């Protein structure tokens, strides 16, 4: 009973985090949200009697994947719409010049 409700809450959180990760324009937050999904997922795995998988997911999904995403963001841009802003700014500059 309590497990069921706990599971349900976990699942809701997970979906929420997933939607947040896709919706969020700030890639860093999105990535952290996906790390949270992995964390919740590994708890789910424990609940589903899969401790081996849970360990793996915790180590790989939460730590390593998140970190390499963050490194990738460091090397590129942080905001999803950064490029659009750049173009907008260029346009504004151009119109200002004219």
């Amino acid at each position, binding site marked *: 009973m309590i497990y*069921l*409700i706990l599971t349900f809450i976990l699942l809701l959180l997970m979906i929420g985090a*997933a939607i947040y990760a*896709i919706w969020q324009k700030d890639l860093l937050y999105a990535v952290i949200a996906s790390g949270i999904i992995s964390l919740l997922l590994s708890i789910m795995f424990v609940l589903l009697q899969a401790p*081996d*998988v849970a360990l793996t997911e915790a180590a790989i999904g939460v730590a390593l*994947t998140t970190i390499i*995403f963050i490194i990738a963001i460091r090397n590129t841009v942080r905001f999803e719409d950064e490029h659009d802003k750049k173009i907008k700014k260029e346009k504004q500059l151009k119109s200002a010049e004219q």
Partner: protein
Amino acid sequence: MEKYLEILNYAIYGAAILLLLIGLYGALTKKSLIKIVLGLSIMDSGVHLLMISIGYLKNGTAPIFSPGHENELAKMVDPVPQALVLTAIVIGFGVTAVALALVIRLYKHHNTLRIDEIKNLKW
């Protein structure tokens, strides 16, 4: 009450499928390369959850013979999906790492992360 809660069990399937769909949606609609990779990895998570929950047995135990409980074979959850997911997670990580390396290089090359602007190769 118990019966209604029974349906909650299927929530795991539902959530897993939703994760898969949300990830796929992100991968198919978002323009940012990193978002796409993120979507793919969320999609993978969904499938992993789905696989594990398929192998689950109600009131089952983990497939480990702990001392004193050596004879509970029938109660053990299916270990095969777990082994498969273990493999799949590691492979998924390898693919994600390669994908992100490609994203970094693409960014250097094109100075943008928008997938619809990275199309030198077409037709």
